[in-house]
């Protein structure tokens, strides 16, 4: 049933240009990050690692959480509009599967964003002609970034479900990213979902040793807690179709 729900969700996305944002928008931070790297090359002497910090510093804090917020808000917008709640909740499928399909799709988009960021990073490095091999940690950065992104998606999906509006949850995503920056600066990054995204990507410090256990545990807890909250809302609240 989950597979069918997933297929239905994928079908809803067909012909929608929303995925384009995840492919095109990372080009900005890539160009700007590379430009900044070239402009400060005498200070940034750690080749690929310095380039990574320039590419991801701002994007993981302000840009990605809000962008993931757009996708999550868009997913629920489909249900909020055109009386779709009626057919969504009366579909012969468990609510858990319906929700899981949305979360899985958001996770796929989070992975897509990371793959784009990774490819742009490699491309920029090659164009600039950075010597030495590509950091072997790159797949790990991207995977941990995806995992952090999934916990952000779980939070955003919950707020987009409850708030029933498009813009406020997206603004909430940006605010979350900014507060996450403060949590990371205080050393409490593992305790906040929006910080997990930049911690996972090692945005500020590519050489940082990530404490994998608390990281995975925290991402898992946030994902599960917000998924359960969303399910509780879906089961308990009367969803009056608009």
């Amino acid at each position, binding site marked *: 049933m989950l597979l069918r729900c997933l297929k239905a969700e994928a079908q809803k996305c067909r012909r929608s240009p*929303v995925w384009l*944002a995840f492919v095109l*928008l990372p080009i*900005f*931070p890539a160009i*700007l990050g590379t*430009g*900044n790297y070239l*402009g400060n090359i005498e200070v940034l002497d750690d080749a690929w690692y310095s380039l990574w910090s320039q590419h991801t510093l*701002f*994007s993981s804090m*302000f*840009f990605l959480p*809000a*962008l993931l917020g*757009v996708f999550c*808000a*868009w997913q629920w*917008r489909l249900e909020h*509009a055109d009386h779709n709640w009626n057919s969504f909740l009366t579909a012969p499928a468990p609510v858990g599967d319906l929700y899981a399909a949305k979360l899985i799709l958001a996770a796929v988009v989070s992975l897509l964003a990371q793959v784009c960021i990774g490819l742009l990073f490699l491309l920029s490095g090659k164009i600039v002609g950075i010597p030495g091999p590509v950091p072997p940690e790159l797949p790990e950065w991207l995977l941990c970034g995806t995992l952090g992104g999934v916990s952000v998606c779980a939070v955003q999906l919950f707020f987009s479900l409850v708030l029933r*509006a*498009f*813009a*406020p949850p*997206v*603004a*909430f995503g*940006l*605010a979350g990213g*900014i*507060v996450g920056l*403060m949590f990371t*600066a205080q050393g409490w990054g593992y305790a906040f979902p929006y910080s997990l995204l930049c911690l996972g990507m090692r945005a500020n410090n590519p050489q940082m040793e990530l404490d994998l256990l608390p990281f995975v545990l925290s991402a898992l807890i946030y994902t599960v807690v917000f998924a359960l909250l969303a399910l509780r809302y879906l089961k308990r609240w009367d969803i009056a179709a*608009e």
Partner: protein
Amino acid sequence: MKLLRLEFYKCRRRKIVLVCAAVLAVELVWMGAFFTRQDAEDLKWGWMLLLYNLATVDAIILPLSVATLASRSCELEHKGSTWKLLETMASPGSLYAAKLAWGALVLAALLVLRSGLFLAVGIVQGFQGEIPWGRFGLFTLISWGVSMMVYALQQGLSLRFANQAAALVCGISGSFLGILSMLFPPALVRCVPWGYYGLMSLVFMDWNQVTRVTRFYWRWPPVTDVALLSLWGAVFLIVGRTLFVRKEV
């Protein structure tokens, strides 16, 4: 005037106050976190440091906040499919003007309140020097002017596309380019609409590479930048209005 009153009426349960309160809260938290990390040497710049950082924070937060407000005002018409009904009673041009005037008033209230709040923070903290009332007023006016230019762009997008993702993605790009444009060469900053938050700042920083001393100084925004800002605003307004007026409902 009636249409403008109706705009406020339509938005009475749309939690606009909550959105504005969230914007103020994020700005306050950000500035609070920033000022607690400064040492006594930096704090002696007081008001200048406040206005310099407020312009930076604006460049990050306001583009998406403005996009959110514009989207809140325009989304309700798409959701309720009200265009056919509305446009049989009022001209599309006057509807566009009413929505823009609503945005102008909300943004003015938000930014005046924001300035009052930070003035109070500065006075309570006992920042050195005379309180720059005039400059705070001018800063509020500039923030409002830049925000209105961005609002014209966002309203155009929110009205044109029923799917608000387009407008919000533009808002996110704006927030991102707003902060990053501070690293651009000066000529390029003028080509980025969201870069005007930083470009029109009343305080600039001068960092001496040799002595490693940071110095802040007051400056007036050049007339050419004010003219360019007006030009951007006019272009967004005319294009957005034309697209809306000619749209088939």
